[in-house]
């Protein structure tokens, strides 16, 4: 039985992943910002076989609550083995261009909040000399594009932060896993028309669970995004800047 803390537990990807953890009989501590929905999810995961499920409210922009939330999880499960960060927003790029206030808030949700959370979590795992951090970044963080570079730059910052953290925690035996999903059919992308490249949250959940079991470092989900992003990253900047992407 593993003890798992999930931030952004109501995200579609997090829910699908939590179902798999529950089916393996793990203990869960769910963190999100809607208590009545959390209660629905708690009941569900208990029936699905989780050893225990507790929950707590948190708006990730409420930095003062990050450490207390981690402590509540440690208290509820008598320790934490795995921390999954799944919260995020898909900002409206144009709104971010028109208003720095909007851009700043979106950047905070998608990057700074994770940096804060991971600071506390990393220190806890480092001192324990064990633990696994899994954070959901995005392929969008691999290269800046005009259509969503605020989101991309936040996810890019998260990706680099995780890379450094992985390097730091390696010697303490703590795994840091960066998940980079491509297009996923979730409420975040409800407005998009879905095509062949789109994956279901269950597929991403499978990738996440496997990455944990195999202690991977950076994982594109599904795997073919690694090839797509390799190609995209290879395009010289002089050409890339002319493309309407």
């Amino acid at each position, binding site marked *: 039985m593993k003890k798992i803390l999930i931030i952004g537990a109501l995200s579609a990807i997090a829910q699908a992943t939590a179902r798999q953890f529950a089916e393996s009989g793990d203990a869960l501590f769910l963190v999100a910002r809607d208590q009545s929905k959390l209660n*629905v*999810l708690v*009941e569900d995961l208990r*029936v699905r076989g989780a050893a225990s499920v507790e929950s707590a409210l948190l708006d990730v922009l409420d930095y003062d609550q990050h450490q207390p939330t981690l402590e509540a999880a440690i208290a509820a499960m008598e320790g934490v083995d795995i921390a999954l960060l799944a919260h995020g927003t898909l900002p409206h790029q144009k709104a971010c261009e028109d208003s720095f206030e909007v851009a700043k808030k979106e950047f905070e949700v998608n990057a700074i909040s994770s940096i804060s959370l991971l600071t506390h979590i990393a220190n806890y795992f480092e001192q324990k000399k064990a633990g696994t951090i899994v954070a959901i970044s995005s392929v969008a963080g691999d290269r800046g594009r005009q259509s969503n570079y605020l989101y991309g730059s936040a996810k890019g910052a998260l990706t680099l932060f995780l890379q450094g953290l992985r390097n730091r925690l390696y010697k303490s035996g703590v795994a840091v896993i960066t998940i980079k999903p491509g297009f996923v059919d979730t409420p975040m992308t409800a407005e998009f028309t*879905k*095509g*062949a490249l*789109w994956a279901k949250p269950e597929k991403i959940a499978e990738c996440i669970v496997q990455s944990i079991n195999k202690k991977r470092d950076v994982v594109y989900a599904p795997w073919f995004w690694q090839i797509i992003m390799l190609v995209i990253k290879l395009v010289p900047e002089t050409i890339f800047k002319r493309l309407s992407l």
Partner: protein
Amino acid sequence: MAESRYQSWGRYPKVTQHAVDYLWRADPLPLAATDNSTFLPFGNGRSYGDVCLNGGGTLIDCRGLNKFISFDTTLGILRCESGVLLSEILQIIVPKGWFLAVTPGTQFVTMGGAIANDVHGKNHHRAGTFGCHLRCFELLRSDGSRLLCSADENAELFHATIGGLGLTGIITWAEIQLKAISSPLIEQEVIRFSNLDQFFLLAKESDLTHEYTVAWIDCLAKGKKLGKGLFVRGNHAEERDTPLSKKASRPLPFPIDPPFALVNGPTLKLFNTLYYHKQCGERSHDSVHYEPFFYPLDAIENWNRIYGSKGFFQYQCVIPPESAAAAIREILQRISNAGAGSFLAVLKMFGDRPSPGLLSFPSPGATLALDFPNGGEKTLRLLESLDEVTRAANGKIYPAKDARMSAEDFKQQYPNWVKLAPYLDNKLSSNFWQRVTA
């Protein structure tokens, strides 16, 4: 481009409709106040015809209501949201020693869909329909009201919603009584029979000794062999050596749309011969996992694509006992004469346990289910000629499988349809309902 999930299993008719997700049962219905079109709950599209379609209107995709609520492992009472699949329920209950009291021939249907068509299984002669084991549910109406329905509370709406084809409101969650088992295995016996008379004898005898009975008929057989087939019967195994958590193997996808229907005369003949002779002796007996026993077709995901993009029809009727033998014979005769063989013909005797739904399909007698690739006019004419037989024998057709029955036949076969009126939600409609009440 992935194909839309908003079509029925027979992929006929093809309609254009708008779908919205509904993810949290406490949320109001995801409908704009200004939206004047009608809507219809959609489960998993395992109905063959048009009961799950609402062309020109909106579908409320209930599959997102996929949460379990409670499971009393001592009493075998399970409560979950309406979009949970029976397959997901089985995954959770079987390891704890419980099984669905009634299950249809595919496990990929939702709780809501199973109630709305009041589905039946191979144990109808003992257990009746799915609705017989339904304890209660919550019904959300378009005016936002939420009603707890059971045999004691809002009883009329309870009976109207069971088999109510999604037209009385959205079932948000439901609670069912499960049945206890001690093994995931079924003691299965397969017996070869060479004509219809033998089928009726076998059914009579087996319904007394076996929880599950069903027969598979070779539709291409003619003359004296008319109605030959395999009789399958089974009981839950009593042995405790096989762990309840034992899994069956996973399905293979049927990934492509063949350019034409793979089911034509020669391929069908080959298939039927193989199926009949798979059974070498007269009788075989073995223990099989519940999945291949109940859900043989689930082993090939999207097998409906074998019929090509024009889709196919299913014809399922029930004929009262007194006229069953003659009518079933006549139907098989007509199919055999038309040379338009059915890939699958399934025959079973329903028992006399009353169905709780106003519009439930099952009633005592023989039920026959057949598949026909959509060959246009020719197929429709054949099906109409089968209607003549069903009608003359006072039989009826199963809405869950239908895409073409006439309004006259429906009103004749389901006289209770007028009693449904006070319970219908006036914002709800379906292609089926438009057609049969026209």
